[in-house]
């Protein structure tokens, strides 16, 4: 559970994510996705309950090298180039080393901005900034990547590119991915398992295929509507 003063943002959230899987947390605005992710990233502490990430407390400093967090509305530095930003992150993780250079190279590939990567980020579109941020989160090869709405602000083509990048990255590096999205179709395509959250509670958790079958639905959106309509939120 998580309280902010008198407001209870999370009332009952419990789920497990297997190593190496892509897990989706889906729900509408204000459902508690971002609060859940911030707790997992060590930014917030739960009011009650127990949270473990890779067997450790989320606030553990050493965990920061193993977990990457991409906030939904992560901003960028206006007067720094995308290249300089990625280099900064690489050096914060690995210092000035060969590993840092490799991470930077991977980041540049993931961002896929070509020569634009050497321009100040204030000149970037929202989509370009998001791609730099996704690249930043994945380039350090985390064991767990927490991606809050990774495709927000991207057009259809770029959103697809990012989804593909996340999928292939997870497969290639064995990275566990925990992501959230408003777009339930996106989650359906990308994730093996999902949890549906509404008004601070997890309504249902399971494999996408099983949920669709169980509810006789064509997509996760229908599953969610059935769950909310059935009073699952209460």
């Amino acid at each position, binding site marked *: 559970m998580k309280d902010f003063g008198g407001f209870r943002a999370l009332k009952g959230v419990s789920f497990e994510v297997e190593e190496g899987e892509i897990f989706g947390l889906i729900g509408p605005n204000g459902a508690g996705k971002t609060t859940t992710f911030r707790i997992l*990233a060590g*930014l*917030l502490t739960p009011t009650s309950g127990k949270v473990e990430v890779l067997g450790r407390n989320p606030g553990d400093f050493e965990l920061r090298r193993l977990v990457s967090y991409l906030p939904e509305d*992560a901003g960028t*530095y206006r007067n720094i180039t995308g290249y300089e930003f990625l280099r*900064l992150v690489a050096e914060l993780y690995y210092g000035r080393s060969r590993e840092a250079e490799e991470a930077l190279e991977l980041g540049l590939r993931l961002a896929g901005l070509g020569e634009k990567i050497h321009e100040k980020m204030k000149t970037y579109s929202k989509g370009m900034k998001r791609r730099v941020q996704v690249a930043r989160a994945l380039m350090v090869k985390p064991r767990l990547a927490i991606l809050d709405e990774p495709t927000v602000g991207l057009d259809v083509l770029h959103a697809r590119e990012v989804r593909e990048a996340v999928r292939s990255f997870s497969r290639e590096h064995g990275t566990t991915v925990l992501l959230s999205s408003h777009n339930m179709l996106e989650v359906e395509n990308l994730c093996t398992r999902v949890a549906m959250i509404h008004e601070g509670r997890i309504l249902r958790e399971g494999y996408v295929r099983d949920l669709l079958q169980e509810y006789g639905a064509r997509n996760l959106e229908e599953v969610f509507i059935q769950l909310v309509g059935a009073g699952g939120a209460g």
Partner: protein
Amino acid sequence: MIRPLIAKEVKDLLRDPRVILPFIIGALVMPVVGLALMIPMRAGIEQAIAGARAVGLVDLDGSTYSSQLAEWLSSKGLVVVVLEPGPPGQLAEQAASRGLSLVLIVPKGFGESLERKQPANITVLDMVREISFFGAAGSELVLRLVEEYTLTALTRDTPLTPEVVRNPLRRSVHTYLLSKGVQLPGDPASYIALALAALLVPLLIIGLALTPMQMAATSMAVENEERTLETLLTLPVRPRDILLAKLLGMFAVALLGSLLEIAGLLAYFFIIFLQMPLAGELRQPTEAAQLFGAHLGVLQGFIDPSGVAFLGVSILLSLFFFAALGVIVGALSRDVRIASTLTAPLGFLAVIPSYAIVFMSSDIMGPALRTAFYIIPLTQPVIAAKDLVSSTLPPEAPLYLVSSLFFTLGLLWLASKVFAFESLARLQRSFEALAEKLSRRKPPAA
């Protein structure tokens, strides 16, 4: 680990025209202001002095003395034009038609008074188009010559000389400063300007510190506003390193900016004081030195050069402290608007203890308070400036520099203890409420 963060700070700030432009404009504007002041000043003085090269004389006395006065003025290089007596309006017309700006009216009884060795009357009519700073400069010059003539006339046929009448007593007053064990020429009142110099130190600090403090607060608040801090707090970097990198990077840029501003200020003073061609005619060098309370040679022995070096380092550390304060205020501000609302009043509040020091005598202060003032970076340069002038710096002064630095770093360390996303968010809400209260108190713009 902190190096890439500092580099990021420096790049982000140096490439931001909103940060650099005020420094460049400040540096360029000061010489322009100097020129803008100097040109009308110079013209005003030139006009006033040129106008007084010729003087109108209305001789109502008709005595030998009044005639001698006219000859005396002519012998001193003035053109004396005799005017017909009349009311001021008529005199002004006569003067204007002959290009005169000054008229001397010698009343009846002028010669008789001088004959009796008594003060004589004279009326001076200055013709000015408007009241200005330098309007009296010309008449001062003429009046000095008139005074010289009257003194000569009064001392004629007496054992006295004009010089004796002008300075009847050759005083030799000295001041012995117990705290420094030095003897100084002149009375203690002559040195009040030096004591008041300590008053300038808080103003100097606040003048220099507001920019880095504002910059630091803005830079940190932008991290909150743009949501970059949330990301930064999840990277493998300690909160204290984030704060320190922000402070060091920002301070490096602020120093560069301050150097530009100081260059502009020096150019301003250079233009005003050194390039003013007629300044020497108004004030002799000795008079200028007296303005500062003592001869410059005496000052050199009076102020300890190592103390001045201490003061310089102390001011620098004070700026560092203000910058740290800015970083903390920025971290606690949800956006730039809140940071701006809070930094200016905070800066001025910080000056209050400094003024308490300036006016507090050493006896009242006591050793504990004195030590505290030396340790706190905010008050250290002020008490140091005061001691530098009025007494001596304590022997442990270098230790105080170290303690001042540690005070700032300690403050930053304390701030890093609450520099976590959750506690920052909570504090930011309180700060926002405070900023709103402060904003509401401001009168609405006209």
